[in-house]
């Protein structure tokens, strides 16, 4: 089966998921991101790599934070950015996803940054562009359903590499609601591809997907056992609506059993780092003393996120130019 993310030369055409991407491409993205972190320190925070390019932020699901980081990244590369909250416009009028895409394509888009509540929506868009001969338009997945959030996974890898240098001697734990988390799926894909020898997932059985060990992870239900000796702790956000589907009794019980406290974190390596994709629920999945503590690298994650998104966008649309 043709991998829709790669062009016929094996280069990145779209970024839809980490799954199926070779290590060399992931490393190239991280390497490309490194010099971009310095751009933010300059007085003029702009590079001309995407000058004249039009990037459409196509958000079928609301997200201020992710949309903003994509917007900043695109603007630092000198692209023209159009933000569309489709959930409040055409989709509400009954226009189909692909009709929206066709209309925006006709406005000479060079790239779509897509967020959608349904898993696989960015694949559908990429396949549609391919089938209609508009493959020069790139698609970046900014989060689809429970499936993938590849730029988040990549910025997390950038953060780990920044603090830990090497992936091949690490033990990494992902804690919380893996079942509903596109972030966790992209993290697992990236960690295993980059050669992390042990990836653990920790949570109640209701929040771990069926056969999750097939993704190459070790499953723990006891957080104390799971955190023992780890180098990196990646917390996941727990959505409040999880209490409704009989997945958990109360946020209080979740905090008591799986919330990250200083006492539980002490079981990890002394130099372990704590990560969170945000937004955090303090007192649910993470205690404030840990979130604000010396081991937390949550704010650097946000900063690196812009550099990584600049790297992805410039690799997709920058070097290849207009075909």
């Amino acid at each position: 089966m043709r991998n829709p993310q790669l062009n016929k030369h094996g280069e990145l055409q779209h970024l839809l998921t980490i799954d199926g991407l070779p290590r060399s491409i992931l490393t190239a993205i991280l390497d490309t991101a490194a010099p971009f972190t310095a751009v933010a320190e300059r007085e003029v925070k702009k590079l001309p790599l995407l000058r004249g390019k039009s990037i459409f932020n196509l958000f079928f699901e609301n997200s201020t934070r992710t949309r903003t980081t994509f917007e900043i990244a695109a603007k630092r590369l000198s692209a023209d950015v159009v933000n569309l909250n489709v959930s409040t416009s055409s989709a509400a009028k009954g226009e189909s996803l692909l009709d929206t895409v066709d209309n925006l394509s006709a406005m000479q888009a060079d790239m779509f940054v897509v967020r959608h509540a349904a898993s696989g929506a960015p694949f559908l868009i990429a396949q549609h562009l391919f089938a209609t001969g508009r493959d020069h338009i790139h698609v970046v997945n900014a989060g689809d359903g429970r499936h993938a959030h590849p730029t988040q996974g990549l910025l997390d890898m950038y953060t780990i590499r920044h603090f830990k240098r090497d992936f091949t001697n690490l033990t990494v734990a992902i804690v919380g609601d893996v079942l509903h988390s596109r972030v966790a799926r992209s993290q697992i894909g990236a960690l295993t591809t980059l050669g992390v020898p042990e990836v653990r997932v920790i949570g109640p059985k209701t929040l771990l997907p069926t056969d999750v060990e097939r993704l190459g992870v070790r499953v723990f239900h006891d957080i104390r056992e799971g955190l023992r000796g780890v180098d990196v702790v990646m917390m996941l956000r727990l959505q409040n609506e999880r209490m409704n589907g009989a997945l958990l009794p109360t946020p209080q019980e979740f905090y008591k059993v799986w919330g990250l406290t200083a006492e539980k974190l002490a079981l990890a390596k002394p130099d372990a780092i704590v990560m969170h994709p945000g937004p955090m629920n303090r007192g649910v999945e993470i205690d404030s003393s840990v979130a604000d503590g010396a081991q937390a690298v949550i704010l650097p994650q946000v900063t690196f996120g812009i550099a990584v998104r600049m790297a992805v966008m410039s690799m997709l649309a920058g070097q290849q130019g207009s075909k």
Partner: protein
Amino acid sequence: MKIRIANGRVIDPANGLDDTRDMYLADGKIVAHGRAPDGFAAERTIDATGLVVAPGLIDLAARLREPGFEYRATLESEMDAAMAGGVTSLAIPPDTDPVLDEPGLVEMLCYRAKKLNRAHVYPVGALTIGLNGERLSEMAELVEAGCVAFGQANVPVVDSAVLLRAMQYAATFGFRVWLQPLAPFLSRGFAHDGEVATRLGLPGIPTAAETIALYTHIQLARATGARLHVTRLSSAEGLALIRQARADGLDVTCDVSINHLHLSEMDIGYFNSNCHVVPPLRSQRDRDALRQGLADGSIDALCSDHTPVDDNGKLTPFSESEPGATGLELLLPLTLKWAQETGLPLGQALARVTSDAARIVGITKAGHLSAGARADLCVFDPAAHTAVRRDTLRSQGKNTPFLGLELPGRVHYTLVEGQVMHELS
């Protein structure tokens, strides 16, 4: 019209027949094999040299989309598809709009189908009004109107007390109840709850959705004495329950669809919405068990589960897409493919789409080639191949997971009541 079908390889599973001989048709019936009856003067001779002459296929589930969904398909378009596929009898699930819960509707459907004069239709009436699982349909009247059994298509009855009563009432008359084993709340996902759903982030449907419903249906069949036909089996565990129920002496039959016989969750690939079907495609282990079960007769019949869905219904994200796939024209090729891959004799494989299916629907006049039978025939070349392409499918539904494949078998002639209704050009 008197027709001689000359020199074909006649395969009649019901009579254990598989040899080369001539067949003679007159007045819509098969009148003789081998030697022509006295005074028989053929008005037409069909040369079937190198071809198989088999009973017309009987499909246990073909949605023709009328009434209610004419934008997806019409009787005309789907009857064409049936003829092109060598399918001469169709059982119609009741999930039309309105559903088949009124004698008048059923009569109209049968009348429309009869006027088209192609495949015979056998409606499965709604077990409950509106398929709502609350009130019983007028089963006795519906049978008079033409229904052959009662079912819920893929709408489960939530209230098991209603299901018990419905099965008791059907058992009063000896009507067979066709039920698809879908536990209502556990069936809310979009793909088999396994590795692929986990990887793709698709809400899953566990195997327990099938087994829990099967336990319920089997126990209620035991309690009521209703004759149960289980539709669209999908799992190895479900098959084990069927085998156990039969070992216990219950009158239970079951079928599997061409999709579940050949595909697994892996075929979803990158969110291929053509693989969004009900029940979900399960694991390769499940598929292998179903193939074995169909071969050894634990599964009685193979059906197309023909469900035409238009492009609007499929060109959406997987979880928002309409479930279903077109299949009428693929029933014979996928029967042959399964037979080839499992090394099953052709006659035994064809039984699953002819005589065994006839037994479940209660068709006695067709599904076999005995003298006196209705001359519903499928004459095909088992060595040729059919390409599955959007432009070659006659069905208005162009969406199937098998698009782009070359499948074995090509239908040369389809005859219904002794008339040639399809002829390969």
